[in-house]
């Protein structure tokens, strides 16, 4: 029954891609449409994951919670918490431009990561939180994977449609105007700092949701999961490769990078073990090479941002 194995693997990859697509869409709102260089994705991912973990896991000694609430409360809580954390951060950091903002957000994400790693009473520090319930997780393996895929796909679809609608609306045009020419936007009477803060909070809430879905998928969350390498820079690579400023590109980038990353290991696994161990590094090289090639030959990404007129959805301007 080989095909069941392949199907299981494909379902796993699809779940993973859907979860990371939320991170990528969140970043696309911030970077693709508003031009905010957020290098602290891992921080918001972590806030979402841990918030949901604390809210939904059963009561445990020595740390906050768990409160044993239904999973959807945890997911909404994750978005709210990520948004609430993003608000003061945005308030302070968004006054910086481009690379300074990147430095500030990277610092904030590290602070969040180290707090999570160190505070026993809050997050059980380095040991992480386990026993996080997974919706429909009691079904047999294949069925529960399919059920979770259906849930994350439905969430991704709703988020995608909402972001698309938002970006096509006058709000979206305003954000692109701010991104492309801040002075002109300000001269038109737009409240630039406020709008940038809006985009920052909106994007961060999506990252928080991604984190929550990830924690429930693995039924556990440990500080190892919020390493900047896999939770920040990987998402950046996905977005740049797929095409920032284009939501479909953001999702495609996730799929392409993850499929290459994951499938390439099957190939390296076929080598004898002493080479297989070394070949693992080849995969990291491969991702780097992809990024270099895309930046050199197709800097706008696989699916570039649509230029020209977008059909306005709303009638009233802001």
């Amino acid at each position: 029954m080989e095909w069941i194995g392949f199907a299981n693997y494909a379902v796993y990859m699809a779940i993973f891609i859907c979860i990371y697509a939320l991170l990528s869409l969140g970043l696309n709102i911030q970077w693709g449409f508003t031009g905010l260089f957020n290098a602290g994705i891992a921080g918001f991912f972590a806030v979402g994951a841990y918030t949901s973990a604390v809210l939904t896991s059963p009561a445990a000694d020595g740390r906050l919670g768990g409160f044993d609430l239904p999973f959807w409360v945890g997911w909404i809580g994750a978005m709210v918490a990520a948004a609430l954390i993003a608000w003061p951060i945005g308030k302070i950091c968004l006054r910086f431009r481009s690379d300074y903002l990147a430095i500030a957000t990277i610092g904030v994400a590290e602070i969040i990561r180290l707090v999570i790693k160190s505070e026993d009473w809050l997050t059980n520090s380095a040991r992480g939180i386990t026993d996080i319930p997974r919706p429909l997780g009691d079904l047999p393996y294949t069925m529960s994977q399919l059920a979770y895929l259906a849930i994350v796909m439905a969430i991704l679809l709703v988020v995608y449609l909402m972001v698309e609608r938002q970006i096509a609306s006058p709000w979206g045009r305003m954000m692109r105007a701010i991104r492309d020419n801040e002075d002109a936007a300000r001269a038109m009477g737009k409240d630039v700092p406020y709008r940038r803060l809006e985009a920052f909070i909106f994007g961060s809430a999506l990252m928080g949701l991604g984190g929550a879905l990830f924690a429930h998928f693995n039924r556990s969350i440990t500080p190892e999961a919020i390493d900047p390498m896999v939770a920040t820079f990987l998402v950046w690579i996905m977005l740049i490769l797929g095409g920032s400023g284009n939501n479909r590109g953001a999702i495609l980038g996730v799929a392409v990078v993850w499929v290459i990353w994951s499938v390439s290991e099957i190939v390296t696994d076929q080598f004898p073990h002493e080479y297989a161990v070394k070949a693992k590094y080849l995969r990291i090289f491969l991702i780097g090479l992809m990024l270099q090639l895309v930046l050199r030959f197709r800097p706008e990404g696989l699916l570039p941002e649509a230029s020209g007129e977008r059909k306005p959805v709303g009638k009233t301007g802001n």
Partner: protein
Amino acid sequence: MKLFQTAIAAALLGATALAAPAHADVKIGLIGGVTGPIAAMAPPMIASAQLAIDQVNANGGILDGQKLIGVVGDSACNPQNGTDAATKAVNIEGVVAIVGPHCSGSVLAVANSVTVPAGIAIITPSGTSPEITSLDDKDTVFRTVPSDDYQGRALARTLLDRGTKKVAVAYLNNDYGKGLAEAFKSEFEANGGEIAGYAAHEGEKASYRSNLAELASGGADTLVILDYGDGSGLTLLRQALENGFFENFVGADGMKSDATFKELGAENLTTFVASSPVGEKSDALEMFSKAFTEAGGDPSAIFVTTSYDAAFLMALAVEKAGGDKTKVAAAMREISNGTGETILPGEWAKAKELIAAGKAIDYKGAAGDHNFDEKGDVPGAYALFKVGANGFEMIGEMK
């Protein structure tokens, strides 16, 4: 665009072409942190697991003379890559069991989202977090390395017995260091010891002098370092020696790395002792050490004994279960529960005969006896080591 399509097509083609299994072979997954934070430790661990597999193949193979194959997967020490590697091992490679993953965070994620639902047994050689004990694992998760809880407590009692009443503790801020430090602290204080400094540090920093100065200000002359001896633990030890912050140094199994005396010189480490799990029958350890040295490995590297035992135990369990992956976990309990004929590292042919004859066997490994408790944990036996002229020398058992 074309390049991507070609790349994906090539990768998929390669995957399908190669993944079609030759049914004669039995596969087990070897999932480890090949890239990522423990990249320096992982290759010897995988090599020692591979040694067990080679011994199986050289001594009659598994089941009906089939070949045992270890499929190496990279967990990169994080849950994202861990679940990815495990999903591939279980579904694409069709492994009957998994040795690994190496890091506790990966073990938790892999067990929860892949192997427990899929009913695949896993045995980790280095996931030391106490959280693994409480996993709802349907009895499929084992480990050959004791939970940090045991070792931290044993180390505390041993130090008190040796007359050390006042120490400072520096631990690496991850599940390994933290687990050890907490267990050590509670046991040490409960038995009348005094902790004069207690601080976590982050790994891979260039300098720990400020951390050390603060720890030393408590007035203790003994520093307990709960870290890895080929990483930040080495830096910590070096800087403590250079600046004379402390006189005596104590480490746990992570610090029992040859890097310490190779880098710092044995003559400078006369006041350094480290605890490490050992087998109660030391001939098991010797048999492993001999075989691993012949295979070109370093038997004193960290976690190689537990990795070897994990792979050998898994091979025995697969043999006992007749290759049926749903029975491997149950078989694991039968092959190493303290009753039956003793099997030492490398004695595959003897074990195979006994299993075929339906006799009970009991594996005694290089890292301990591995009589699993009801949670799939091993209590572990420890000894204290000092640095001698020829590397680490045992100076006594720990209780």
